[in-house]
């Protein structure tokens, strides 16, 4: 198995774990981390295919897109964190669950 094959398959597993986390995990912080993990899976998929298309160097376009993507993902996550903290401060809630 080539390096890129291993990592492209891993990327799917990471994405699925993150997706499961988004649906099944309750706490705000964990949901946010789950989305960041999903993003990590997508980036890994991109970069592993860049490795497959290596000539003298790996395909630089996916690399540039992933660097852009990481920064945007972190900014979005920081915004999500600020929303979560605001919700927590106003209502005291830590999850979206209805209270009995």
């Amino acid at each position, binding site marked *: 198995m080539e*390096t890129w094959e*291993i*990592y*492209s*398959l*891993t*990327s*799917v*597993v*990471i994405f*699925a*774990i993150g997706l*499961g986390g988004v*649906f*099944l*995990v309750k*706490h705000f*912080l*964990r949901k946010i*981390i*789950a989305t*960041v*993990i999903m993003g*990590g899976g997508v*980036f*890994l*998929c991109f*970069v*592993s*295919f860049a*490795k*497959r*298309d*290596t*000539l*003298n*160097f*790996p*395909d*630089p*376009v996916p*690399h*540039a*897109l992933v*660097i*852009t993507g*990481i*920064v*945007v*993902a972190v*900014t*979005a*996550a*920081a*915004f999500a*964190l*600020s929303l979560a903290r*605001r919700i*927590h401060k106003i209502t005291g809630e*830590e999850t979206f669950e209805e209270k009995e």
Partner: protein
Amino acid sequence: MELLTDGLLALLTAYLAFRCMLAPKLSKTVFTFFAFGLILALMWIRLGAVDVAIAEAAIASGFMGVLLLDSLRDFSPSYSEFEDNIEQPPNQVAFAKRSLSQWVPAIASGAGLLLFLFIALQAVREVPAGGGLAAFAEAKLPESGAEHPVTAVLLNFRAYDTLLEVAVILMGLLAIFAAGGIRQFRKPSLPPAKDPVLRKAILIFTPLLFLFGAFLLYIGKSGPGGAFQAAVLWGAIGILLHLGGWRIFNALSRRMRRIIIIAGPLFFLLTGFALMARSGTFLAYPPAFAGFLILIIETLAAVSIAAALTAIYAFLTD
């Protein structure tokens, strides 16, 4: 040997992602996330993407980790004003209370996830070999003004993406200001560090980080590095000083802060329009000045991003 390294890294990442979701305590989740980001950075290096590795370790693991750690202050029980909302650590409690009808959705979503996993694995295995854009990038590299292909793509071939990315950071900052309720919900911020050793250490690290950031910025022309990686290191200076009690960002006047944060994207945009007036294409650098223009744009963008990151941190924690 290679197979062993890659396989172990792959297993470790999947395991850490899994632990991250299932760790019983919130603080464990955050620390596992740190580790996850760093292991991911190792994977980028295995894939030959050193730029991405630096960005991942610095931004996605470091900066994000700092924000998450700080959020723990809000959510962890000892700081919570809402004592009855403490997260229940043992998950057996939650399992025992569920009746059969509540298990059905859980099983259904688990089965759905497995199905998704298999379909996605199949899809990834069957991605057709397109050859990618490496050949194009290599052919145009001499005209781009940068010797490193990733920098050439980031700041020349797809400069438009990078411009919008810097704009997205600005948008994120504005959104955080808007969502944070600037004054109303201010909680007493962390007291500045009293520890003299810590303060001294921060002062020693400041010039080192600055130099290292400048090095990464300059080396980006010919090797892995560049504006974002430099920006995060410079942002780290801001955060460290903030933690040590030097509120440099609050000390600046409001107008100055705005100018610093806007300078990068504004110069980028104006350059784009100036070049459009000259040659008719947005952000089409003339090959003779390309290297020089890229260096100026990168420097200003790095300063702006660093200021924006410091502002996000300073605002979220104050």
